């Protein structure tokens, strides 16, 4: 009997866990090499200034110090970190040099690097470098960036790196004769992904062969190899980028950072392996920041709540340079402010503003967390104005199934179009309300119970995934009849090995334990790869895997036909044997006396759109401003589930990460551009006791029409809604005071201040 598997869709326990729970994972800082030198980086303590001198003579003479590198050692032209996404020529002047030479533009920018026999000696050496910087006025926020209070780039007329515009329909006309309009201003605060594993790089230069091996790569190995090869002036195929276990990514880890050049450069410079691991203070001032945005937005509606148009202007604080993916969040704020809703006329500008702070990049749900907060906050205000129930307001405006594919706003100047692929957004909203118990909880709205004001809210979201253009996979039938899977995707701790083993076992029609290994995260495995971002690995990698399996099975049929003397199309592959019509058969192991291999690919230029709804119940202590989260429900439909266990892990984990952004996480700078939250004692993230009541529910229907798995990217949906739904629930709880939160985070102090302001206004 032929066995057809259905590992896909099952809550399979993860293969990765067997090593990780026993402390046998292998993270980059776990690697040891003979004769290794340790690097430490001297970072600017001045936010904006002109470098007068950097004197390394004392540091160089210290015992155990092998070399101290400054920009002067990097040659005439200092390499820069290029844009990976939206590589528009306009951004090029704002690229970050890998080490500062003339000017520093943020606290944390690299000035010099010491190489020594131990990490402690390297840090000692850094402390002995004498730096003289002439301070310049710091541009400490986006408002002063606009004022031209100071210019970050002397040869540029302003601190604006770009203006994006999102347009759909004719917003001006829609606003001209709208019966109802409301204008608001909202903001979200600077925070960051904070993966638990600090960044690290180990570089080894083989002078005899002219080869470089870089360990500790993550996320986008092939793209980073292209960047590094160009900067180092060597061929791409002379570099191996190797990924080990990765302690969390969330968009931030694995992008190309200055150290991704400096450490390999140092290895070649010194002729010895060089290792660098950042500490947490360095991490907080160097890894990509995110989410600092403000928006002036206006909505036009009919009196029945039908939305006619949305227009406005968003301002995004980019920090000091345009890094690899720095423009994505700003683009998304404008393009996806409409979310899952039918808003026929849109005109939104977004200014990308440079400031003397750490550069920004993507963080899980980039731009979407921000823009969903703006939109959903505005919607609750509008629904209240119009006397329409907040659920009904959303229901009326959600894009309907019959309208799919639904075109969203187009971005200028580079003409980025997009469309929602499939789904019934009403169903996830209904499910969320049912699981939450909306009918009962809504009765609590605004009531004060035991001194705490109760509030509830529900919001809807979409989550984009599956960025193209391509992903690669290679399957090898080994001589023992097992199959090895090589992927161009990258792991960042999300459980790819297990998910790919499930997909491969189903596609090959073989037991999962006969999938020998799933290997990803090396440029040596497949001809090219695109990595892990934009919730793309399952859709893109999984679809490439299906293609490779199809090709491998064709090869196996051809090989079996030769041995069994029949036509390839007559061979049946089942139960790990190849069978001919005459009953003769050969085992897969015998077929692969020489291993059989096939490479597959998946090309795609469209996006998948998971969707869902979140609901929250909060209780606010009006005396202290403390907000307790009484209940939280997140529902997401991702078309087709691969592993419900890991999917739920993504949903719930992302929701709690989002609660950090809604309530506590804030990278605070003072007026001089000094980072005031440079440790985990100051930068607060959720702990086990903060949010015990989170419930996640996954659904599958409406498989994506744009890929053979029917899957949709689903790593970010849990975070997108959180700011909006929490702020709406707080507004609901405090409606009797007239409190309307317009800014995140809602710390106890911020909520208390809102209450004070409301009380004063009422006097």
């Amino acid at each position, binding site marked *: 009997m032929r066995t057809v598997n259905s590992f896909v869709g099952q809550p399979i*326990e*993860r293969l*990765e*866990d*067997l*090593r*990780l*729970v*026993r*402390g*046998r*994972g*292998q*993270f980059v*800082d*776990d690697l*040891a090499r003979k004769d290794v030198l340790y690097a430490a980086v001297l970072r600017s303590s001045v936010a904006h200034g002109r470098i007068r001198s950097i004197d390394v003579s004392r540091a160089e003479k210290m015992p155990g110090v092998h070399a101290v590198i400054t920009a002067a050692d990097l040659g005439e032209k200092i390499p820069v970190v290029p844009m990976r996404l939206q590589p528009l020529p306009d951004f090029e002047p704002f690229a970050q040099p890998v080490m500062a030479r003339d000017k520093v533009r943020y606290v944390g920018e690299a000035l010099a690097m010491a190489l020594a026999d131990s990490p*402690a000696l390297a840090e000692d050496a850094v402390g002995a470098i004498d730096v003289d910087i002439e301070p310049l006025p710091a541009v400490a926020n986006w408002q002063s960036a606009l004022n031209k209070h100071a210019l970050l780039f002397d040869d540029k007329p302003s601190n604006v790196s770009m203006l994006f515009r999102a347009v759909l329909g004719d917003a001006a006309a829609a606003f001209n004769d709208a019966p109802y309009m409301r204008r608001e201003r909202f903001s979200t605060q600077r925070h960051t*992904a*904070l*993966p*638990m*594993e*600090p960044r690290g790089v180990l570089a080894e230069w083989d002078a005899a062969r002219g080869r470089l091996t870089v360990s500790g790569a993550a996320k986008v190995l092939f793209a980073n190899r292209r960047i590094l090869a160009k900067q180092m002036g060597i061929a791409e195929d002379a570099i191996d980028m190797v990924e080990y*276990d*990765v*302690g*969390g*990514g*969330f968009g931030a880890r694995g992008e190309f950072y200055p150290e991704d050049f400096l450490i390999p450069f140092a290895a070649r410079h010194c002729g010895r392996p060089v290792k660098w691991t950042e*500490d*947490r203070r360095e991490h907080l001032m160097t890894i990509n920041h995110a989410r600092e945005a403000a928006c002036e937005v206006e909505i036009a509606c009919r009196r029945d709540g039908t939305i006619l148009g949305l227009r406005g202007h968003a301002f995004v604080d980019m920090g000091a340079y345009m890094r690899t993916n720095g423009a994505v969040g700003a683009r998304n704020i404008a393009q996806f402010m409409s979310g899952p809703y039918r808003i026929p006329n849109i005109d939104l500008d977004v200014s990308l503003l440079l400031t003397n702070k750490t550069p920004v990049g993507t963080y899980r749900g980039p731009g979407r967390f921000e823009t969903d907060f703006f939109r959903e906050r505005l919607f609750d205000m509008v629904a209240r104005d119009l006397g329409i129930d907040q659920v009904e307001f959303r229901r009326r405006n959600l894009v309907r199934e019959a309208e799919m594919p639904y075109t969203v706003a187009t971005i200028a100047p580079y003409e980025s179009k997009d469309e929602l692929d499939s789904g019934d957004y009403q169903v996830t909203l209904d499910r969320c309300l049912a699981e939450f118990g909306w009918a009962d909880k809504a009765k609590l709205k605004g009531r004060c119970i035991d001194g705490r004001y109760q509030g509830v809210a529900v919001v809807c979201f979409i989550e984009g995934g599956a960025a193209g253009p391509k992903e690669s996979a290679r399957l090898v039938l080994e001589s023992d009849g097992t199959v090895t899977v090589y992927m161009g995707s990258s792991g*960042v*701790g*999300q*459980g790819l090995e297990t998910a790919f083993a499930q997909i491969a076992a189903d596609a090959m029609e073989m037991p999962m334990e006969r999938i020998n290994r799933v290997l990803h995260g090396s440029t040596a495995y497949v001809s090219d790869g695109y990595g892990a971002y934009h919730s793309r690995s399952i859709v893109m990698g999984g679809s490439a895997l299906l293609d490779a399996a199809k090709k491998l099975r064709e090869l196996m049929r051809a090989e079996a036909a030769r041995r069994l003397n029949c036509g390839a199309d007559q061979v049946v592959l089942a139960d790990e044997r190849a069978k001919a019509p005459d009953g003769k058969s050969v085992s897969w192991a015998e077929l692969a006396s020489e291993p059989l291999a096939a490479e597959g690919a998946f090309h795609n230029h469209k996006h998948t759109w998971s969707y869902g709804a979140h609901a929250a119940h909060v209780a606010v202590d009006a005396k202290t401003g403390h907000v307790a989260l009484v209940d939280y429900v997140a529902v997401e439909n991702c078309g087709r589930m691969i592993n419900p*266990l*890991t999917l*739920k*892990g*993504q949903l*719930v*984990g*992302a*929701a*709690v*990460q989002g609660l950090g952004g809604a309530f506590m996480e804030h990278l605070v700078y003072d007026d001089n551009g000094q980072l005031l939250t440079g*440790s*985990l*004692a100051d930068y607060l*993230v*959720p*702990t*086990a*006791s*903060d*949010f*015990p009541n*989170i419930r996640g529910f996954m659904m599958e229907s409406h498989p994506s029409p744009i890929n053979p798995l029917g899957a949709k990217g689903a790593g970010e949906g849990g975070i997108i809604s959180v700011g909006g739904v929490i702020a709406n629930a707080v507004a609901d709880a405090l409606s009797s005071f007239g409190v309307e939160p317009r800014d995140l985070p809602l710390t106890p102090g911020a909520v208390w201040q809102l209450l004070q302001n409301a009380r004063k206004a009422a006097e």
Partner: protein
Amino acid sequence: MAIKFEVNGEPVEVEVEPRMSLADCLRHKLRLTGTHVGCEHGVCGACTVLVDGAAVRSCLMLAVQADGAKVITVEGLSRDEGLTPLQASFRKHHALQCGFCTPGMITTAHALLSEEPDCDADRVREVLSGNLCRCTGYISIVEAVLDARAAYQRGGGKGA
């Protein structure tokens, strides 16, 4: 300085600088890299090990302070190929994603369950609130620890 202590039941003798942390000593001198270093200032808990039975942040303790102590790291909880009931419970409940915080979570939870095998969810949350996880949202970790209580109530929670 030369120090002597016991790690995972084996006596070790190691030469360390006075300023070296216990975490760095375990990881880089003794090559026990299961103990992770996430913040080096005692907040994240990834480096938690057991010193004479108590859960301790090895990034805040100097290696020389471990002289004469009995240290157990995550590698010492399961000495063979099997998983301990706590480790198996972490896998079953999907209580880890990237796995970086996991050794600290498991050593902390092991210390808790060894002392208080009947603890409730609030107590688990209170104790684990000193260990940061950025992936799971903690819900599954708390479930995993609660589910592993039975093995400790029967005695020890030792490996399979």
